[in-house]
């Protein structure tokens, strides 16, 4: 795993990707610190809150090549033939990406101290600043796992970046999107139905097994219909609630309110685990279906 980790880290740092990512992060961190902290309040958490949207650009940039490039260059053949379990290969890659992701955060960790030393805008509350920074790191870990999974589904790096951007966009605006959906039970049912069809399409793409995807989608649709027939009231507003639960970005918000939210950390780690598992499965599936 160490060899995979080091190679991935090397490829991120020897190419432009790692530096472009770091530059974007530090550029915007600098702009927000200047805007909020140098001439305003000493609240460093508002800087991190404002930087959430940057993940829309940085996560696709960071993760797009990781597996898609290996598939494109056929170097994945080497990975498959190594006497290493796929979990260790994926973990090696993931930890390297997390290391690169964390590098600008390590630099940003100096900002509260620098601000306090300069004392231009009052005293920065270090506890809440570093709590928020930790929350931002966990958010980054989760988004990196999602990006890595998307990269594992693609062979084209550009396509991986585009798909990752779209997913990040949807995740970022999930809560506002949820508000557009009518709270009626029927609207929830339709929305769940559309989600089931989308799930079926993704499954078809991932497994290349049309019959399996169709049967599973029909089973899901039938289960939804039965549930709706039995408990129609429980469907009202249900889809919006589910969407809000999936809104990864919003889980970070508590950290900016000076709350070190352990539940959110568990949530981040769980989602990370699920996507790493899915990445391993996507890689293994290629061994079976390539």
């Amino acid at each position, binding site marked *: 795993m160490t060899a995979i980790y080091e*190679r991935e880290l090397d490829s991120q740092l020897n190419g432009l990707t790692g530096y472009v990512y770091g530059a974007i992060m530090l550029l915007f961190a600098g702009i927000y610190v200047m805007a909020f902290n140098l001439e305003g309040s000493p609240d460093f958490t508002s800087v991190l809150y404002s930087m959430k949207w940057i993940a829309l650009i940085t996560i696709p940039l960071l993760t797009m090549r990781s597996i898609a490039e290996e598939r494109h260059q056929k170097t994945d053949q080497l990975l498959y*033939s190594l*006497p290493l379990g796929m979990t260790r290969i994926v973990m090696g890659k993931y930890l390297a990406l997390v290391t690169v992701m964390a590098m600008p955060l390590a630099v940003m960790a100096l900002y509260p101290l620098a601000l306090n030393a300069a004392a231009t805008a009052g005293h920065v509350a270090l506890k809440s600043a570093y709590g928020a920074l930790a929350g931002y790191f966990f958010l980054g870990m989760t988004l990196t796992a999602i990006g890595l999974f998307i990269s594992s589904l693609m062979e084209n790096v550009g396509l991986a970046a585009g798909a990752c951007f779209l997913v990040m966009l949807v995740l970022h605006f999930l809560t506002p999107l949820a508000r557009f959906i009518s709270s009626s039970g029927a609207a929830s049912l339709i929305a769940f139905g559309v989600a089931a069809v989308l799930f079926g399409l993704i499954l078809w793409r991932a497994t290349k097994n049309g019959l399996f995807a169709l049967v599973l989608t029909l089973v899901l649709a039938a289960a939804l219909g039965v549930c709706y027939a039995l408990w129609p009231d429980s469907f009202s507003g249900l889809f919006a609630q589910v969407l809000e639960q999936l809104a990864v970005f919003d889980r970070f918000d508590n950290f900016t309110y000076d709350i070190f939210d352990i539940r959110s950390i568990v949530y981040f780690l769980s989602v990370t685990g699920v996507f790493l598992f899915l990445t391993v499965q996507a890689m293994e599936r290629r061994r079976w279906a390539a």
Partner: protein
Amino acid sequence: MIEVSHLTKRYGSRVAVEDLTFTVDKGVVWGFLGPNGAGKSTTMNILAGCLAATEGRVAIGGHDIFEEPLAARRQVGYLPEQPPLYMGMTVREYLSFVARAKGVAVRDLDDQLDHAMAVTGVEEVADRLIRNLSKGFRQRVGVAQAILGDPEVIILDEPTVGLDPLQIVEIRKLIRALGRDHTVILSSHILSEVQAVCDRVLMIHHGRLVASGTPEELEQRFSGQVTYKITAKAMPMEVRQALEYLPGVTSVTAEMGAEGRTEAVIAASDTGPDMDEKLSFALSDRRIPVLRLEREQTSLEDVFLALAQEDGPASEAEDTPRHKRRGRGESA
């Protein structure tokens, strides 16, 4: 060393490899020969653990590739058709990465790298970026990564594709050298390559094994007929009379050539090595001077071309050589 039994790989409804069974002995260079699309790369990928089979069993050094994948893969070095090289790394960096990923201990790392680079002759480009290397050197680096970790089995999928003639000769030399310490399986659709490099041949067509043996055995097995060309200082009639009733001879064609010599073509069903002597003695018994006696055997190329041109269903593939053999016998 490698046991493959009833191996089948299907892509949806398409069968790439069907019911393949063979055993590869230790310390031999094996050629996996077949026309394009015969299922060679699929089989190589399965043996290397890169691809799962639909049915069947593969054991490498006694380890089942599906049940004990890591133990099995530890014994295999694999060079796919397109060498899996990271272009942004130097040769040394790349080989060091592969060695460590294969679990080579740090204390053995330098020795292994030096050995792999020396065997494959890439020492002179060790510190150059792989993207700047010629195709021949890239192929050598690919072979070098395959031998890292000192695997028992080295699998090379079409290792000379795209190389120039000089590079091909060099890679073939390298494969022969590897065969001294490892079991090498080499896939190719180029006959001359298999004949030049391999001790034994597995011939595959439509995903099925149609023949296996040494190149010479295959030629004999599929030809069933040997042709001799004789130049003798006598009249054609005399040569014909001397040879046509000899046991093992099926036909004699004799014509008058230049300077009063007879050029004869003798087809013999006796493919044994002493047929040469029988022909020679038969002529000398009649005091006919033999100026030339050449044995011409049906080449492996004939067998291969027969397979490559065969468009029938896979199930008939095994009958193809027998069919061709009868055809040759009838026409002779």
